[in-house]
């Protein structure tokens, strides 16, 4: 367990980045920790970039993480992971990446090139000391709902970062924040996220 944690969640509008940061942030507050979260949600509904800087623990001030001081980056989408790499610390940083690309519209309709998949994976693997590329979208889909990607990623982050938050507090926060009736499925998604790291 660490004293404090600085992570960036990065993804695309609709992937649940904000929900993930709410779940982690609320659990941390329940544990009596100080929390700062900076969200850039721009035009999230419209497929734009969504990021969340999450800071938990003591001695934190700014909601924005200074460059080079993120303990880890969770990429809900591989290109979005790479876009935020400059925030990673040089020593001991980690990366967790859902390996499933979402092409920008301009790439889909053939106006702009999306990075080559292999080159992207290579860059991701060399970006941090510990890198976990998981099939987050696949896990969520197998659990019956692609929207649960955000909870799978929360599980993976919980397993890698070992934040000073009890598992019970995490689970309660998930229960409180997911749509009614989907609580059990989402707790399963959380567990599958943890397992994806443990079995890595």
């Amino acid at each position, binding site marked *: 367990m660490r004293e404090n944690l600085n992570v960036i969640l990065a993804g*695309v*509008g609709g992937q649940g980045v904000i929900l993930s*940061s*709410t779940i982690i*942030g*609320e659990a941390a*507050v329940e544990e*009596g920790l*100080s*929390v*700062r*979260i*900076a*969200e850039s*949600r*721009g*035009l999230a*509904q*419209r*497929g*734009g*970039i969504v990021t969340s800087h999450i800071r938990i623990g003591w*001695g*934190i*001030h*700014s*909601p*924005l993480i*200074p*460059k*080079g*001081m993120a303990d880890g980056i969770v990429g809900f989408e591989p*290109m*979005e992971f*790479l*876009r935020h790499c*400059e*925030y990673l*610390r*040089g*020593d001991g*940083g980690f990366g967790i990446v859902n390996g499933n690309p979402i*092409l*920008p*519209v*301009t*790439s*889909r*309709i*053939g*106006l*702009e*090139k*999306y*990075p080559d998949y292999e080159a992207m994976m290579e*860059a991701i693997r*060399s*970006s*941090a000391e510990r890198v976990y590329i998981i099939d987050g979208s696949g896990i969520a889909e197998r659990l019956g709902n692609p929207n649960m990607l955000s909870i799978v990623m929360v599980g993976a982050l919980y397993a890698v970062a070992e934040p000073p938050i009890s598992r019970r507090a995490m689970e309660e926060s998930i229960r*409180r924040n997911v749509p009614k009736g989907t609580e059990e499925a989402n707790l399963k998604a959380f567990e599958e996220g943890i397992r994806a790291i443990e079995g890595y």
Partner: protein
Amino acid sequence: METDYLTLDSIGKKVLMTGNGAVARGAIEAGVKVATSYPGTPASEILSSIAAVAKKAGIYAEWSINEKVAFEVAFAASLSGLRALMACKHLGFNWISDAFLVSAYTGVNGGLVVVVSDDPHPHSSQNAEDTRYYSKMGKVPCLEPSDPGEARKIMPMAFDLSESLQLPVVVRLTSRISHSRGDVELGEMRKEDRDPKFEKDPKRYAVIAPHARERHLWLNKQYAKAAEAMEGFPLNWIEGPRGDFGIIANGLNYSYVKEALGILGIEAPILKLSSANPIPRRLVANFLKGLKECLVVEEIEPITEESVKAIAQSEGLPVKVYGRSTGHIPLQWELNPDIVNGAISKIIGLSNPGPGLLAKAVQLEVSRRTPFLCAGCPHRASYYSIKQALRRINRGGIIAGDRGCYNQGIYPPLNGYDTCICMGASIGMACGFYKAGIKEPIVAVIGESTFFHAGIPPLINAVHNNANITVVIFDNSWTSMTGFQPNPATGINAMGEETKRLNVEEICKACGVEFIKVIDSFKVRELIDAIESAINFPGPAVVVSRHECAVRETARLRRRGERPRPYAVDPTRCTACKICLSQFGCPAISIENGKVSIDKYSCTGCGVCAQICPSKAIVQVEG
């Protein structure tokens, strides 16, 4: 969830809240009774939070037709003795300025707090403007919280201050406070049970010129009292050791300064300022005494910096003052801890860049990810139809745009409009292009919420001055851009009650427009015909392109357990002409290795691509 915390009666409990949510909570704690707003990022969630609990908390909340009206509603509530709040983004403040600047002359009764969120970067606005100028112009106090916790705390203080000075009070946020979250300690829920009562006093409330001269005198006295009150404002303080180099930090920048000093491993005297206007002169002078250099860190314009220089000069203090006007901090864009770190390092001559440069540079070019109109968005069909109509007429065409989700239509392949300035400018500028003698067809595009906000006066102007323009109203029945707030075309109000639904076409008719057609946005052939006839009509003409916002429509289907019936490409008929991509560009359609396909999950079944496909290769399938 945040809404649960808004009315929780649990002093001292810490909860996670956004800056906007914390402002709402603080206002509720202070006993606000009337809250108004017109949506605008980054301020929208202040009113939507209050509205979500309004009935429970005994508050009246409304989405007004525009900011000016919102201010006037809150202002009259305040004159009636109630505590009232009005919230807007910086651009909304331009709209209220007329009423706001005079409200300082009448003064207020119940506390009146205007919460404004500025967008320094700007992340989601047409410009970055510093609302503190308005507070100086109006001689109205302005407070600036440094984090969500302080945003909660500052609201009851703002209401109290407003009542003690009888002046409105501005609470200035920035996008980074509005949309950042932190642990917020809940305060006491005050019970403010007041009966509304308006005591007539025309010398005060009817500001004709002779009265205005008297009230100006009064305002100057109140402003002097405000300056005195700021000297002891509890959220201003001096901290840190003594030294030659000190830092003055406004609002949120306090956190960047603390962060930067931590990274650099140094200490310095800090003056944390949460009162932006009037500036506490004695406190600043005290802080400056003994300093050789002082950095002022503030968001957008060097307002505090200029005041600090003036104070140093009048007190005869030999301190060099740095900030945005001296180039130590850039004059544009949002600040962050790295910029503040750079400014401090430069002044004290540190070359240590902090840990930033330790990060490995990733050598891979990432592509842009521009936001877009959603799959199935009716605006795409409207733009496509305007372009097709102009193509048929073949005399060029100028499209004056407006503010709304339809702004995403600027990107290829739609390249939907040529100008976008501010709410309502589409119709006003269309009049101007016509009167300037432009011979091309002139089309204004405007959403229904923007039309209600600012489109009606310029439409009347077009009729009155006979401007031969075509106005296409993109009516999706929600204020979508800012988070799907209801407006008069929706049929519900901020508190979820049913209200009379207004039809824009009836308003246009009453304005004297003689050509009006209402078409479903998804019937593209009819829409193109209607726009073509409107352009050919001699005189102002209106086409209402109406279809509900795709996000709202699919959400409603899903709630009923239904799914949209998607379309698919029949590969035996598709000739890969790419018209669906190069002229329409729905994000559900993509091309890979020369093969066009439709993603059945994102397709909403609007069927427009099927209508425009020359080979009839797009067909509806079972979901």
